[in-house]
């Protein structure tokens, strides 16, 4: 599989958690927000959301809308928020280390 696809998949979880942390969002809204920033198969979002719910990081609630089907909103739980913060810290450290390494390599 294309390696950048793997990068994006790994980042997708973090992006989704941050987006839900900003405010409660429904699936299609998340798909749009994510694809504004990273190019990823939008369909991968739904299995991921199910997993986040299964692991207790998110809860869902339905809200009727005047147009279209009812929207399934995702809300971050306290555990989810904790998990997101941990992931953000890990992500920053990881990016910094990899950048340092690339930097060092390019100086040689």
């Amino acid at each position, binding site marked *: 599989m294309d390696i950048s696809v793997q990068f994006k998949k790994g980042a997708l979880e973090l992006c989704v958690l941050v987006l839900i942390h900003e405010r409660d969002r429904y*699936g*299609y809204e998340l*798909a749009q927000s994510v*694809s504004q920033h990273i190019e990823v*198969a*939008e*369909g*991968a979002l*739904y*299995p*991921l*959301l*199910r*997993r986040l719910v*299964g692991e207790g990081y998110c809860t869902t609630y339905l809200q009727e809308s005047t*147009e*279209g*089907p009812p*929207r*399934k909103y995702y809300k971050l739980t306290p555990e989810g928020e904790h998990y997101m913060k941990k992931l953000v810290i890990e992500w920053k450290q990881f990016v910094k280390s990899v950048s340092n390494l690339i930097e060092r390599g390019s100086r040689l």
Partner: protein
Amino acid sequence: MNKSQFLAQLHDHLSVLPPEERSELMEDYEAHFAFALQNGKTEEEIAQELGNPAELAKEAIDGRFAPKEPVYWFNPANPEPAPIQTPVRQQPVKRRGGAVTTMVYIGLFFLNLILVPLLISFWSVGIALAASALAGLLSPLAVVLDYFAGHGYFAAKTYATVALVGVGIFLAIASRYIFKALVLISVSYWRWNVRVAKGGAGHE
């Protein structure tokens, strides 16, 4: 690919999931189509953006079943019974270690050492029956040849021929059923071998 094609493919690939989970996921994708159609996208665009149904289904299934720590049935260091995940059992086991593969091939070899000759002997019984049937049916011809060979003719030969043709008809009917059964047994035995050798992935 349009909406119904996408959803149908996804539905097929999700067949290993329990029905309620599958329908929940399907609802998510159906809702996605509904929202995106409202925003003026075409079904083809939406399906394109969603991605390949087979890969999405794989992700949904992997994300669900991926055990935190893989449990091996032969691992004595893990006395706890493996958590029962019934859907996993429905899913063909795709990967197998080299040692296990070798053992499977050795096992199949010894099994076939016994069963293949047995199958061949069944086939020879079938062939023998068919040959007897053919001989019975052709026995009038034998009488004619017998006459021309100068062995003379008498009525008893005709009566014997009539009886032999009757026997031949019965044997022909019997061997038809026997051959059908033999083909069925051989083909399914062969398929079972292929399936075992491939590690249960040969259902398609």
